[in-house]
């Protein structure tokens, strides 16, 4: 097997490692789905996958290509309505982990998935919140996977689609939302985590990446954790599962 790996594989594998056995995870399609399935096949066999389409405990036979793929339903433990998934599961506090994505993530982990530019006259109209406004607020923990690019990491998002730590951890706590907010942003260069103020700082680099590369590709003055570590490289087994079992066509490579 080719043990070189792509940026996507690196992000998927590092995100998978953040999941804990027994976590109930609100899964999106694409790379978060691969991260969850990889975790289930390695250290978290009891990971419980639920989808905003209302599918509970999915065990897909093939790689789902949309969040409502029929393979998610056949063999699942339960199906419920969208109103139920957002109330009984998410709002009630039954979801441990949510994955978030967006065009912009700012210094305090706030996310923009709505517009670049002015809302009423958008320069770029993005898809919008979908489930993310509530996932960011109510899942116990959130993770973000994104390529490390300056335009994706502005000092402040143009539109506040879903909450990170707002202007700092205190503000999120004072808001009364139940979740703890974003716990890690996994990029192709390393991992950012919130410090005690909720500011995203560099806590890990992947082998081969440097602090300078991370700083150059971040839109704010990126702080570096004193305990900066180097992530374990993907193992042959992780790569094998990802390539042979989960994404044999290499759609997300």
């Amino acid at each position: 097997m080719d043990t070189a790996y792509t940026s996507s594989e690196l992000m998927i594998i590092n995100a998978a490692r953040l999941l804990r056995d027994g976590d109930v995870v609100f899964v999106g399609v694409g790379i978060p789905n691969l991260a969850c399935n990889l975790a289930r096949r390695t250290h978290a066999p009891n990971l419980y996958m639920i989808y905003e389409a209302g599918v509970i405990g999915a065990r897909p036979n093939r790689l789902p290509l949309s969040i409502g793929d029929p393979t998610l339903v056949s063999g699942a433990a339960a199906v419920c309505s969208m109103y139920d998934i957002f109330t009984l599961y998410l709002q009630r506090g039954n979801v441990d982990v949510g994955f978030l994505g967006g065009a912009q993530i700012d210094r305090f982990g706030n996310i923009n998935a709505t517009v670049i530019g002015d809302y009423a006259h958008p320069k770029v109209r993005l898809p919008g919140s979908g489930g993310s406004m509530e996932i960011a607020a109510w899942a116990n923990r959130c993770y973000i996977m994104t390529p490390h690019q300056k335009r994706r990491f502005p000092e402040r998002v143009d539109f506040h689609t879903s909450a990170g730590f707002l202007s700092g951890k205190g503000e999120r706590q004072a808001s009364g939302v139940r979740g703890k907010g974003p716990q890690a942003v996994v990029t192709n260069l390393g991992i950012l985590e919130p410090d005690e103020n909720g500011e995203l700082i560099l806590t890990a680099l992947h082998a081969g990446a440097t602090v300078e590369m991370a700083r150059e590709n971040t839109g704010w003055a990126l702080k570096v954790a004193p305990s900066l570590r180097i992530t374990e490289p993907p193992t042959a087994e992780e790569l094998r599962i990802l390539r042979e079992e989960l994404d044999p066509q290499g759609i997300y490579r």
Partner: protein
Amino acid sequence: MSKLCTLSDAVSRLIHNGDTVYLAGFTHLIPFAVGHEIIRQGKKNLTLARATPDLIYDQMAAAGCARKIIFSYMGNPGVGSLKVLRRMLEAGQLEWEEYSHFGMITRLQAGAAGLPFLPMNLTAAPDLERVNPNYKRLTDPYTGREVMALPPLNPDVAVVHVQRADEHGNAQIWGILGEQKEAAFAAERVIVTAEEIVPEEVIRSDPNRTIIPEFIVDAVCHVPYCAHPSYTQGYYDRDNAFYLEWDRISESDEAVQDYLKEWVYGVRDRAEYWEKLGEETHRRLAVSPRYAAPVNYGEY
């Protein structure tokens, strides 16, 4: 009383210019055939409401049916953005009203339940509230804390595609349920399209499976393959290849109009559309059976 009629008749009779329509279905059971019939009949000034507009509202907007769109995720699911709608919004050619998924279905649930509003916990994300005045704040009378609220959404017409229905309109769905029930109860008029019209004994053999009762239904239409390129659980697969292809088609207005000419205006109805897709597509989307375990209701 039988409510069976052709889809063309149902659309002509029940959907009027200027209506707010909700073609229901969260990735599953999206009634593409109904959207295409609306386009063929040249309906105008519609407000198109759907959590996920999906390709069908891209196509209806491109055909000039829409005045406004109400949505919570304007993407091509699993692929990227909806390029027709995106261009129209960026060019200021279409009004819009935007929610999160939960906001959207909260509005439908309030509409279905006959409530003047429903509360939601705060999300600490202020901007959607700021740009959409339908979001309001309330004080929880028990804890003194603030909650958000949204008012009901009561579409003029909801369209719901189902696996099977009887001629009266009792309709059953399995697989992803999305917002089908809420949209039907919230709407003033309901069109049910079904893969199969079955004797009422089939429906009544499994009443827990029924999502929509006959007396809120105005028309029942037998429309096999109604959902393609979306899917019907147990009947045919999602046509992911077409979702990818639309990403290319929708790059240009010309290609979109060519598509509409060939696949919407150029066919009489869904039967002709399905036939035109060809045997290779039929084979590709065919599904082998996997049955639910038996359930005994008992003879009482």
